[in-house]
């Protein structure tokens, strides 16, 4: 078959079903591609060739016996290094978990294995998912396949870069404030943050429990829907998991791809456009909205006045939750243990302090200290308590907006990919990358980012974000797939066809 790394997961699934190819062949092709380009991209922290090929052989046996475990049985995948993988190191991009091998699988990982998807390896990320550029990984940054001197977004830059560089057809990411969608936007790929509770958090190392959500990272909307149906749905091991069936996501993606949006009401969020958004990002967004209108949709402008406070709200709630979650890294039961210099018979507390100083990077320390501050007596009501109230107002803004519109639209990220190093020591500038993605996490609603084109000023990818009400994930797939089809027709082929051929560059 033609180069399997360039094909979509849906096409690969068909090729496996028809016997045109085997999972071993596909998995080898992707491992070869990783070997060829990952020295430049650094999307992976760990590649598990042996495990992936063993899973591929088992998949081929099931296919030969006529008993595939799922539609995607045999299609390889990459997994963000924040999900526990039994037998495969899980570091969360942190020194404190260097070499840690979990004794159990996250539910998402268990479902991937049950469905027969060979796991190629673990992808790079900002340490404990704190960041928007993957530069806060303790193991070095991931590079954007469109321009290796630029960031691939974060925190899931590894997963997005892996699919953008054709190292994997599918990947899993996690999105706490935009960590699936923003990397999707800046790498020209597709990322979905499901409804909070739609995909199990069991075995997902917590950053902020009330915001974290795992989801698909892919090159097409249909591939995301196929993957979402594999990993999503109720899990009794996660008490915040929604106990009801997923909507028909693949069907919604197929319906959207028909390109007919008659009767669909699109809301453009006034507070998430205009000022603060790069001209080329805004331009591609406006054009995408016009294409959707051409397909029969109506557009209304909606106002969500509290969204201007969403970023501040998030940077109180997230550090508060993170500072208590990361208390578990105490050098006692797993992970790094460092003994302080020059102390005879140090106490457990002294070992803890020394370990956490060496094991955590700057951004993690900043957020732990900020969270400790926000939760301190005397400040709790003024900061954390207020942030929880504003969170209610953000939810109300969404509810009001969804009375006027079926979905809400905005650019996914305010800018295209910036240069590695440009914002790494300027926390506020870094935080602004998640301006448009954070409100969805605060309210728990689903969102997708699909490529909307390349900005004129720098030729780099831009993203269109579609948000829907909680549990209406099918709507983001329908509208996302419609936008994808209309834009593909306009471009005459996938956006990623215009990205540099990395294998040629490094040879």
């Amino acid at each position, binding site marked *: 078959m033609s180069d399997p790394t360039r094909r979509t997961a849906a096409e690969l699934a068909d090729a496996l079903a028809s016997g045109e190819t085997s999972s071993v062949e596909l998995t080898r092709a992707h491992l070869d591609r990783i070997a060829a380009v990952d020295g430049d991209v650094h999307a992976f922290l760990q590649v598990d060739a042996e495990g992936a090929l063993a899973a591929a052989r088992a998949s081929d046996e099931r296919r030969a016996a006529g008993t595939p475990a799922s539609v995607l049985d045999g299609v390889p995948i990459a997994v963000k290094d924040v999900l526990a993988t039994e037998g495969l190191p899980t570091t969360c991009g942190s020194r404190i978990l260097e070499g840690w091998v979990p004794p159990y699988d996250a539910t998402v990982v268990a479902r991937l294995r049950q469905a027969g998807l060979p796991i190629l390896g673990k992808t790079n990320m900002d340490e404990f998912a704190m960041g928007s550029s993957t530069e806060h990984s303790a193991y070095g940054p991931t590079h954007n396949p469109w321009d290796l001197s630029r960031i691939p977004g974060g925190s899931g830059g590894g997963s997005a870069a892996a699919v953008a560089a054709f190292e994997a057809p599918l990947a899993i990411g996690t999105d706490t404030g935009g960590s699936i969608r923003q990397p999707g936007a800046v790498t020209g790929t597709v990322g979905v943050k499901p409804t909070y509770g739609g995909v199990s958090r069991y075995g997902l190392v917590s950053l902020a429990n009330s915001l974290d959500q795992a989801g698909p990272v892919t090159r097409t909307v249909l591939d995301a829907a196929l993957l979402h149906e594999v990993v999503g749905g109720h899990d009794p091991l996660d008490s915040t998991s929604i106990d009801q069936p997923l909507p028909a996501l693949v069907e919604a993606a197929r319906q959207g791809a028909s390109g007919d949006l008659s009767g669909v009401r699109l809301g453009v969020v006034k507070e998430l456009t205009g000022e603060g958004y790069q001209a080329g990002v805004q331009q591609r967004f406006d054009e995408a909205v016009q294409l959707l209108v051409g397909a029969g949709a109506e557009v209304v402008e909606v106002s969500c006045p509290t969204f201007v406070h969403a970023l501040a709200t998030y940077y109180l709630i997230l550090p508060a939750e993170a500072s208590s979650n990361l*208390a578990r890294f105490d050098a006692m039961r797993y992970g790094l243990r460092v003994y302080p210099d020059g102390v005879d018979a140090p106490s*457990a507390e002294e070992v803890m302090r020394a370990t956490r100083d060496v094991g955590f990077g700057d951004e993690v320390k900043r957020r*732990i200290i900020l969270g400790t*501050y926000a939760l301190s007596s005397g400040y709790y009501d003024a*900061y954390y308590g207020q942030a929880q109230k504003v969170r*209610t107002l953000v939810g109300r803004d969404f509810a009001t907006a969804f009375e006027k519109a079926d979905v809400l639209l905005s650019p996914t990220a305010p800018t295209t990919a910036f240069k590695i190093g440009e914002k790494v020591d300027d*926390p*506020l500038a870094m935080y602004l990358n998640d301006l448009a993605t954070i409100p969805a996490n605060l309210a728990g609603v689903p969102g997708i980012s699909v490529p909307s084109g390349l900005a004129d000023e720098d030729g780099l990818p831009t993203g269109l974000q579609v948000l829907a009400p909680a549990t209406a994930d099918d709507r983001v797939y329908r509208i996302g797939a419609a936008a994808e089809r209309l834009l593909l027709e306009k471009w005459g082929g996938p956006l990623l066809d215009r990205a540099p051929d990395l294998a040629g560059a490094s040879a």
Partner: protein
Amino acid sequence: MPDITREEVAHLADLARIDLSDAELDHLAPQLAVILDSIASISEVAAEDVPPTSHPLPLTNVFREDVHRPGLTAEQALSGAPAVEEQRFAVPRILGEEG
């Protein structure tokens, strides 16, 4: 306007059980002051009567059946431990010298 001094950052790091060197304190304290300044606006946004949201989808009383189910074995639970002794986590002393 909130302000956070170098001493306060040192105290918070102490509460969070992180040894910060002088150089780290010099670096982090001004950054934290800038972040706090930018999020201070929040204190005037919500009226008294707005209820707080701790969780995006309100679920209460999520129970499972009270039945036995397998967990990790001792070997599995100890597999990532920095130090192990007699099937237990071996930890540095937790009491003072006089204890």
